[in-house]
């Protein structure tokens, strides 16, 4: 019997599991795919101070406060994002002024400077790719967090505190007894077996799928689903983030992030099955066209791929997407006559910890448990202290660069990975050269971070996210995964085509320029020589339907 079953392994679900577990509740997290595999996995990773939503000052306050907490509990997976907003006309200037005022109010608390005004000359020195016609620019600072690592670390920390994490388990039924939740039935996609667990409370943190899950208990959730797409460009072709107005007056951005640049986002109301969505030609051109006014050379940059996700907004209608509140709601379905089921709508990445705190407070009250939230003061794994990259690299004879990149994922846990090379010196071998990732980290991740597929490893390690999109490493990782998980042989080959298919999903919409050569190479390797086009046909993915 669990106290709480959390459904959904995104940023919110993992945060809830962590909070509940830390407060001593017996907790189970069920995710139908992998941790961070849906909505949070397609966001830019910005933990924004909420300034886009100046009209909701309480939300800006909340976001700003959360950023301060993240900088304490997860600083090893956080990076600063310095941003320029170039100004081309007087109208931009006045709206910029309001923005500056709101932002600056909270700057000191977030330990960032107030909004600064820069001259055109200085702006161009900082960011030479800007359109030289600008008359000034605003400078301010935000932070990025690695959204995948955040979710993984939250889930791991929940485990440390006693929670059970089950990925690849899809909830198929919620059973009630006397209008109270009694149990959750789920299908384990790996073992192929159905299981039922009893619980006192269910938290529905499934984002865009909240309606579906609530429906299993005969209850309702209304969402306004809104599709957002990004174009991912290779390398940091801008020095700092750039914010600009799109063709329709919305704000879009170009953010250097890890080893790429993110151009996003679009906003389109959607009623499509979220699993089938891909970025459209229109969305790509909308983003490129919009950013071209501000960064004229953007079209020359190499596109690696596109990615798309769905915002589970609170259902406010007949207003533009941008005006829908960015707050969140916790729906207690006892109002509908089903007690013990709590659903989330709305919310943003930056709020996930706070959302968890709120819902756990509610749960504790329901279960009559006295425990206070500590998620904002207790650090996530790896955050403890700084590490010396150069000496670690020497000690374990691994390149400095590899260790540096590992540090951004693991902080002080880096040494745990490196320890593996003592017994297996061959695991120093670099497997994904784009990022780069060594075999030891892949083995470590498989053993400690419950991935089932190469795509899961991609979320944890960034393997296959470089410009070659797995051209060079897919077969190598498949072999390692197969060894570690004892995969069936057909599964090993199919795992290759599955991962490359998932990569192709993002390469196909913007298919042009260097992507053509890249794909020719993929075909040369995997079809022409590997013969996988004849020997390893996978079940079509949802977005591949209609072939």
């Amino acid at each position, binding site marked *: 019997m669990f106290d709480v079953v959390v459904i959904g392994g995104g940023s919110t679900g993992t945060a809830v599991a962590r909070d509940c577990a830390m407060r001593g509740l017996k907790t189970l997290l069920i995710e139908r795919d992998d941790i961070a595999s849906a909505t949070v996995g397609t966001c830019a990773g910005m933990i924004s101070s909420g300034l886009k939503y100046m009209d909701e000052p309480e939300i800006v306050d909340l976001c700003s406060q959360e950023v301060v907490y993240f900088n304490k509990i997860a600083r090893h997976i956080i990076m600063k994002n310095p941003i320029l907003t170039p100004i081309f006309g007087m109208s931009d200037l006045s709206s910029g002024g309001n923005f500056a005022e709101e932002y600056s109010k909270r700057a000191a608390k977030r330990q960032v400077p107030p909004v600064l005004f820069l001259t055109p000359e200085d702006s161009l020195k900082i960011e030479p790719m800007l359109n030289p016609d600008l008359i000034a620019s605003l400078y301010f600072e935000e932070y990025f967090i690695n959204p995948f690592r955040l979710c993984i670390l939250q889930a791991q920390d929940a485990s440390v505190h006693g929670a059970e994490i089950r990925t690849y388990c899809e909830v198929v039924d919620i059973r009630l007894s006397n209008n109270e939740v009694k149990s959750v039935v789920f299908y384990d996609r790996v073992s192929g077996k159905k299981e039922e667990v009893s619980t006192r409370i269910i938290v529905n943190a499934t984002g865009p799928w909240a309606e579906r899950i609530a429906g299993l208990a005969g209850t309702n959730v209304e969402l306004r689903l809104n599709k957002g797409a990004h174009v991912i460009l290779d390398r940091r072709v801008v020095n700092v983030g750039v914010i600009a107005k799109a063709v329709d007056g919305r704000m879009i951005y170009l953010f250097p992030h890890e080893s790429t640049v993110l151009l996003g986002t679009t906003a389109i109301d959607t009623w499509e099955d979220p699993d089938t969505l891909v970025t459209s030609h229109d969305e790509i051109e909308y983003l490129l066209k919009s950013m071209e006014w501000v960064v004229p050379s953007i079209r020359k940059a190499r596109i690696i791929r596109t990615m798309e996700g769905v915002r589970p907004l609170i259902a406010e209608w007949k207003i533009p997407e941008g005006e829908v509140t960015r707050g969140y709601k916790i729906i207690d379905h006892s109002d509908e006559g089903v007690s013990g089921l709590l659903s989330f709508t709305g919310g943003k990445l930056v709020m996930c910890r706070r959302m968890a705190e709120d819902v756990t407070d509610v749960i504790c009250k329901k279960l009559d448990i006295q425990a206070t939230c500590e998620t904002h003061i207790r650090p996530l794994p790896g955050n403890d202290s700084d590490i010396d990259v150069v000496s670690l690299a020497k000690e374990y004879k691994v390149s400095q660069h590899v260790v540096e990149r590992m540090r951004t994922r693991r902080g002080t846990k880096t040494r745990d990975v490196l320890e593996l090379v003592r017994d297996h010196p061959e695991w120093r071998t670099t497997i994904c050269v784009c990022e780069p990732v060594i075999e030891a980290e892949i083995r470590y991740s498989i053993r400690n971070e419950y991935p089932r597929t190469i795509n899961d490893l991609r979320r944890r390690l960034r393997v296959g996210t470089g410009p070659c999109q797995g051209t060079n490493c897919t077969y190598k990782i498949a072999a390692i995964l197969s060894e570690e998980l004892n995969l069936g*042989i057909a599964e090993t080959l199919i795992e290759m085509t599955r991962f490359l298919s998932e990569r192709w999903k993002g390469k196909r919409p913007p298919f042009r320029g260097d992507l053509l050569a890249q794909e020719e190479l993929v075909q040369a390797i995997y079809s*022409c020589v590997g013969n*996988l086009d004849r020997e390893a046909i996978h079940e079509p993915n949802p977005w591949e339907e209609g*072939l």
Partner: protein
Amino acid sequence: MDLEPDVLVIGGGMAGLVAGTVAAQDGLDVLLIRRGQGSTAMSSGAIDICGYMRGATVHFESPIEAIQTITRVHPLHPYSIIAYDEGGIVPEKSIKYIKDATNWLKKQLARSIAAIEGDLSRNLMQLTQIGTTKPTCFVQGSMVHPGLYDNDSRPLFVGIRGHSDFNAAITANTFLQYRMDIDMAPRIVLNEMIDLSPHGRHHNIASIEIARFLDTEEGLEKITSILKNEVKRTGATHVVLPAVLGIERAIDNAKHLSKETQATVFETLAFPPSVPGLRLQMALDRIFQASGGTLILGHKAVSGVFKGETLVEVKASGPKRKISIRPKAAVLATGKFISEGLLGSQKGVREPLFGLVTVTGEFYDASEEYPRRHTRPIPFTNRGHDIFQFGVPVDENLRPVDYNGRAKAENLFAAGAIIAGYDFSSEKSGLGVALTTGYVAGEKVIRNIRSDI
């Protein structure tokens, strides 16, 4: 200084080098310019003629069968185009060309570092580095594995510690599973990881490093003694190695190892850019030069000057110098997207050097076809992506044609992947089409200069 060769070949993979060598061996003064290494280095080093029909799941038993089918079903396939005679397709003509070309190549490569074995009467089911098999026609001497599919064969898959390209255990199991699925031998496979360190360490070892090491006496001695022990210990009949048997000595090494171990030692097909691919590229480079051809690397053709229906000049640029070449005839063998013989924007595909007409696999104008529309939602299917059939259309003399079907220039010929109408990866026909069209283009160039076509 201006250069005035008889023949200018632009591009130096299989197609360009074969065309150039054929012309040079006929006594013509041939200049070949190339940017990049030549796409043959980006192959597995085996020569596919044709393994599958697009859309088919069962492979062709032999390339001859393939040509007979293709010439019937795909009239605009390069194998069909060369078979045109007086307005109709004569399959025997295509087969003769392919026979001539492959016999010629076999002879040229005979004492080279990439000598090939195989014949057009059957496709070989060659073992790949991930344990699958694929149909191909000619393989290098270090890759042949007689008896592998016999009932009593016991292949030992040998991986090298720290060489991440080849996981012997997984490859062996994949192979066994596949053979069991079709109820064929072998019924037992073995695998082993060995230490063979070219630089005294056991990680981050590239195939090329092992190949170089095995070119040395030290390396060969080391692997010989290791494999001898392994074969003795396991009773293996075959030793399956990744494609690392050497650059200059691979074939001799395979023979030596087979003799010493009393088992058949051979290399699997490897992913490009493979060591055998490099051997083949190097061998072709050497043959071209030995035939009197001049090879100028690091130069990119940037534009052409046409006078009426004749190409009179090609401008090329090196890293910091420009040159002008005024050939009597030219062969365009610049390949597809990897080698940038074709470029694609979001809106269409073009040929950047001469601005030639480009077409889709269906032979519609490709200049305004969105590339995405010519791909499939699933990356690997037996039909391939149509985008890889894009190219320039050619006449029966392999001359690129304009929208009216007339040759763009009487002295400009095309060979290899730039020609439209076939998909190397789905058909497994890449080097075969490159070889054949290169050979035919070489002959056409000779006729063009010597007499007139």
